[in-house]
Structure formats: structure tokens, C-alpha cells
């Protein structure tokens, strides 16, 4: 797969702290790429360097195989974390203006606008000012301004914050459609669970350094823990057996138990089931896959991933790790 964007050894220092330290990344063409990490890790700095908002101290960026030039901004669509539009400007005029700044001619911009206004069914908004729109509507307009010029690289910083579920879904579908049409998309977020299902590739950034990157499926495979969740009915909770050990257990209110067991080396699920079946009545048996967040925390705290699993808190949405 060809790389659309290649970042080589980027460093950036602000007056008081190092924002990025020798970060290198490859973003293949046509994938959804997750740029993940806690707040303050350096994601936004990296994005601002890619979008040429700020200058890098050292390192190189290649876009479509050539060294990045100022003209490349026309091929990038960027939605910053802090959304913003001219509040007193009319929707149509504003989008037209932003599209022209991205290098579209008036006619081209009008044509694209027409397409999107019909698609989103927002023709009635053309002459409304931004401040007359609801927050969700503003977000839609903001998204439009990002994709109007058909960028080959779309960068979305915290893409779903501020969207209500309906609009978030709409945008999600648009993003997937853009991807099918060949657009490369970078998501940047500290809420890793919100995007991991969409990301083909990802990179983890912490304390201004990249700590992990690669294809999502391979990362998950690599950090597989051979851990399983068993839910069952029994008079007492299961103990460690010949082929597995018990990590955690939880007594549920309706008299059932949930236990987290870890397979011994080269033990299959079948072998564990064979041992469990005579003892208890199994309600559920499922491999416990680490989330990106679990992997991330285990990497930065240097603890086993299985420490992150928590049966007591079944929402499986652990707090994002805070580096401070």
C-alpha cells in the first residue's frame, strides 16, 4: 500500500516543554488512521505541523511521495478540535469563502455546495447566519467546510465531540463513504474507544513520543492476552484449574458468577471448556480482547494488560490514562 503521508523524525519544542520528540509515522493511502493519546500528548501539535499551521523544529514530511509544499494544504481538509466559524456570516457565503480559500473557483464551489446542501437537506440554511443555527447544525456546516474541496487527506481532531448521536452517526457514515472513494482520514482523539472500531491503522502518542503504531488488527493480535470471561451458574465460584488460572471474579446479584480466566500457554478454548463444563452451567464464554486504551495504559505504566480488565465495572470504558 502506498503511503499518502509520511512523517519522519518530527520534533517541536515550545518555550517550556517538548511537544514532539522525533515522531515518525506512515499513513497509507485510503485508510482511517487513528492518532491516539491522552490530552497534551502532542497530537494537536503534530496535526498543526501537518496542516502547516505551525513550523516544525526538525524532521520531514512527505505528501504523496514528495516533500510537503505550501500548496499541499489544498489537498488537506482539517477540522480542529475547537470548532469555529464566523458567527455573523451567512452559511452559504461562509462555505463559499472557505472553499475559495482552498483553491476552488466560484463555479466549482457552488457546484459542490449544491451537492452537499441537497445531500444534507439543508438548503433552507443558505441565508441563515451561523449564530442562528443550533450547535449540531453548526457542526454539520463545519464538517461541510472541511470536505467541500474534496481533500485527499481529511484530518479530524476529536471528530465526534459535540455531535449528538444522530449527527455523529451521519458524519460517521459520510466519513466511511469518503474512505470508500479513496480519501485518507486521520482521526485524532483521546477517547480511544470512540474510534477504534473505525480505525484501520493507529498510532499511540504519549508524552510527545510515539509509543506504538501499526494496523489495528495486528496490534490487537500482538497484545492478545488469552483471557476469557466466563459467566455461569454454580453454587460457588470456579477455582484455577489445570489449564487456566483465575484473574478476577464477580458475584452477580441474581446468583450467577462472572470470572476472568487466563489460559495457560498453548491451551485452546475447547480445552478450558472441557474442564469447566462438568463443574458449572455456562451462560457465556467469551475471549476478553484488550481495548486500545488497555494496551495504551499497560504500555505507559509498564503493567500487564490484564491488570486493566475490570469486571466490577462492566461498562468497559476505562478512564483515559492521564499522564500527569
Amino acid at each position, binding site marked *: 500500500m502506498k503511503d499518502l503521508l509520511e512523517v519522519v523524525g518530527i520534533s517541536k519544542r515550545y518555550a517550556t516543554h517538548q511537544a514532539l520528540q522525533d515522531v515518525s509515522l506512515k499513513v497509507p493511502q485510503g485508510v482511517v488512521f487513528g492518532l491516539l493519546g491522552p490530552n497534551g500528548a502532542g497530537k494537536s501539535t503534530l496535526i498543526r505541523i501537518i496542516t502547516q*499551521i505551525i513550523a516544525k*523544529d526538525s524532521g520531514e514530511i512527505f505528501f504523496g511521495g514528495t516533500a510537503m509544499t505550501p500548496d499541499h494544504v489544498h489537498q*488537506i481538509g482539517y477540522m480542529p478540535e*475547537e470548532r*469555529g466559524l464566523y458567527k*455573523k456570516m451567512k452559511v452559504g457565503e461562509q462555505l463559499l*469563502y472557505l472553499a*475559495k*480559500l482552498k483553491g476552488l473557483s466560484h463555479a466549482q464551489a457552488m457546484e459542490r455546495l449544491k451537492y452537499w446542501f441537497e445531500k444534507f437537506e439543508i438548503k433552507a440554511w443558505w441565508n441563515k447566519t451561523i449564530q442562528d443555527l443550533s450547535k449540531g447544525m453548526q457542526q454539520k456546516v463545519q464538517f461541510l467546510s472541511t470536505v467541500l474541496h474534496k481533500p485527499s487527506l481529511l484530518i479530524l481532531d476529536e471528530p465526534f465531540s459535540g455531535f449528538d448521536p444522530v449527527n455523529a452517526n451521519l458524519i460517521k457514515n459520510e466519513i466511511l463513504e469518503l474512505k470508500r472513494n479513496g480519501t485518507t482520514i486521520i482521526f485524532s482523539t483521546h477517547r480511544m474507544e470512540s474510534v477504534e472500531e473505525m480505525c484501520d491503522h493507529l498510532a499511540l502518542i504519549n508524552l510527545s513520543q510515539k509509543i506504538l503504531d501499526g494496523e489495528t488488527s495486528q496490534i490487537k493480535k500482538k497484545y492478545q492476552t488469552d483471557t476469557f470471561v466466563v459467566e455461569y451458574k454454580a453454587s460457588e465460584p470456579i477455582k484455577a484449574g489445570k489449564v487456566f488460572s483465575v484473574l478476577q471474579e464477580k458475584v452477580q446479584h441474581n446468583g450467577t458468577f462472572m470470572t476472568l480466566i487466563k489460559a495457560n500457554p498453548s491451551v485452546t478454548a475447547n480445552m478450558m471448556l472441557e474442564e469447566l463444563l462438568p463443574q458449572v452451567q455456562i451462560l457465556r464464554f467469551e475471549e476478553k480482547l484488550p481495548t486500545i486504551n488497555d494496551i495504551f495504559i499497560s504500555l505507559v505504566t509498564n503493567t500487564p494488560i490484564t491488570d486493566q480488565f475490570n469486571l466490577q465495572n462492566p461498562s468497559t470504558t476505562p478512564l483515559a490514562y492521564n499522564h500527569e
Partner: protein
Amino acid sequence: MNKILIILQREYLTRVRKRTFLLMTFLTPVLFAALFTLPIILAVGLEGEKTVMVLDKTGKLMEHLEKAKNRKMKYAPAPAEDLTKAKKILAEGNYYGLVYIPVLDWEKPKGIELHSEKGISMEVESQINRTIELAIEKHKMQLAGIKQEDLNKIKADISLETFKASGEKSSSGGLFMFGIMGGMIIYFAIFLYGSQVMRGVVEEKTSRIIEVIISTVKPFQLMMGKILGVGLVGVTQFVLWILLTLAIVNFVTPLFMQGMNPKEVQKAINTNEDAQKMIDKTTQTVTEKSEISVMLSQVNMPAYILVFLFYFVFGYLMYASLFAAAASAVDNESEMQQFVMPITIPLIMAMALSSIITREPDGVVAFWMSIFPLTSPVTMLIRYPFGVPAWQLGLSMVSLFLGFIAMVWLAARIYRVGILMYGKKVNYKELAKWIFYK
């Protein structure tokens, strides 16, 4: 299309289409026109004639008082013999006031009283005072046997005509007017439109659109587009102001005055001392080969306009970029003041010292202030009509141009960092650091 041009277009159109712009543009000339014409209209239209009764115990002054021409003020003998009766009549309200003149010692005329039911304004009081003084003087002239014609012969009325060494006729009054006017316009334009640039920058910051824009254009392009756009708004507004003011003064006011008796208008103008002086001067100068045209010829209008444009354009650009930089460093308008003050000090200085400049247009202060780029747009325009050596003008222009380049560069360095900075109290040390950021 060039990005600066696209930005300029937006900045221009959004401002020109605003309701406040239209309001300002059309109301200001009305105000200006009112300033010219209201005094006349007021004098003619609003106040009725007032009668002051005079209880003259000397028996000598009444005849002079009755002849006295005064704006809206008549003197009539009191229909009473003593003060108490006169006061009673005054209380009936038919008279505006009562002047009581006791028997006077002509050498030391003291003890004259003015009574009235309502309070009397300073202006009216001094007017009555002056009228009585004149009446006494006239009476004393008669006593001394001086005739009015003799006095008129003695009076001298000269108006000094000044010449430049080159032999051209010059008029320092006109030069003064010209210089101050040019300086003032630049001063106001910089403040008015500089602050609009500032507000625009803060708006982009607070609405957070700045990051979207900056991911597409260079900060410098955005800054210049904004400054130029607002500058054009200024030019548009000034041109409209001048045209509309002229139109109102020339066409609307006469219409308005048509309803009035022209004689009354003339009288009002005549009795209004300021207007009188102005008319005297203009009629006099118009007859004497038109002093205005002399003034114009000596100032060399085309050159003055060119000089004005040069200083206007570069002065505005320089200051506007400084304002933009200041605005970029803060999060909202209320924090802006701390940076605006120091920027505007040179400008305010230049205006405040304008009297020194006009008094001594070739003095040391005038020279240096017309060379220093932050003051020269105002100072040089004040100086220019008095005649500035070519080398000084050249030096000043080069200096302003270099100052402009330096300030725009400096401002752009600060601006590009500032617009992305939030939630930080910025001081000057910090600003200085930004200049050297990569």
C-alpha cells in the same frame, strides 16, 4: 485567485454591508452639515424677540439703547417711575428683564442692575452689559464733542498679508488649517479603522475560526487581507462622507432654509458675530483676488494630495498591523487596552504637539517628529503646507517606508504566534520572545 484578495474581499464586503456602517456613513455627514447650518437656523427660527425694559434715571442713555442693534433683544423705556413698580411690571411676565440705571458718575459708572424673573444666561448678560457700555461710551463721546465720523476715520483696519521668501503670497491661517486638517484626518482614520482591524482579529480568535483559516492561508496573508480590506472600507467611507456632506450643505440646507425669510437669515448671520467675521473674511478675500485660491496655489494641491496619500496609506498600514499584533495576543476585547495604549502614544503625542509644530514648523521638534515613522504621518502633514525642504520630505518618506516594513514584519511575527495562543496572560517579555520563534 490570490488568497489575500479573497480575504480582502470578505473583510470589505462584510463590513460595508453592515447596518452600522450604513448608519455611520449617512449620519455623520448629517451631523457635519448640522454643525455648519444649525447655528444659523437656530438663530433665525427658535428664539422669539425679547424686550428688556430700561429704567434710566440719567435720562441720557435711553436714546442710544433704543438704537442698539442686538440679536433678538430690544430695549424699551420702562412704563414706571421707580424700581419697585418696575419690578411689579416685570413680574407680569411681558418683559424679559429689567435694567435699572441709577444716576451715574460718568467717570465711574457703577450701580447698574439687571433684574429678571428667570435666570439669565451668561451670554445674554454679557450682551446686555456690552450694550450698556457702548451706550455710555457713545454718550461720553457726545460729551467730549467727538463725532462718529471722526472716530470712524481714526479707526484702523488692516489685515496683514504674509509672503514667503520666494515671493509667493502666503497665509499662515490657511496653512495652519490645511496642515491640521490633513493631520487630523490621518489621526482619526488610523484610530477608527485600526480599531476595526483589532476587533476583526479578536473576533476570529474568540470564534475559533482562526485555526481553520490558518490551515489554508499563511497568517501574514490573513493579516494583510484584513488590514487592506478594512483600509478600503475606510477609503469608501471617507469618500462617501465628503460627497454626502457637500451634498447636504449645498442642496438640502438651502431647501430647509427656503421656508424662512431670507432677510431674517441674513440678519441672523449678521448679528452672529462669528458668522459675521467669517463672512467678512470670505467676502473680503473673494474680492481681493480670492485668498483661498492663493492658499491653494501656495500649498500646491496635487503635491499635497500625493503626500497625504503616501502618509495615509503607509501610516495606516503600519499602525493597523501593530493593532493586529496587539489584538492577536489577547483573548477578548477587554484585555486589549494594555497593548493599545503604548501603540497609540506616539500618535496622540503628534496630535497634542500640533500647536508647537504649527508655531515652529522648522523647529527641532517638528523636524524629528516628521522623521520618526510613528509620528510622521501626522506631523509631516501639519508641517508640509509651511514648506518642507525636499531632503527632509524624502528622508521622512524613506523612514516611514522602512518603519512600515519593520512594523509589518514585527507584527506578523507576533500575530502568527498570538492567534493560536489561548488562555495565557501575555506580557511584553512574552511578545518579544514570539518575535524570535521559529
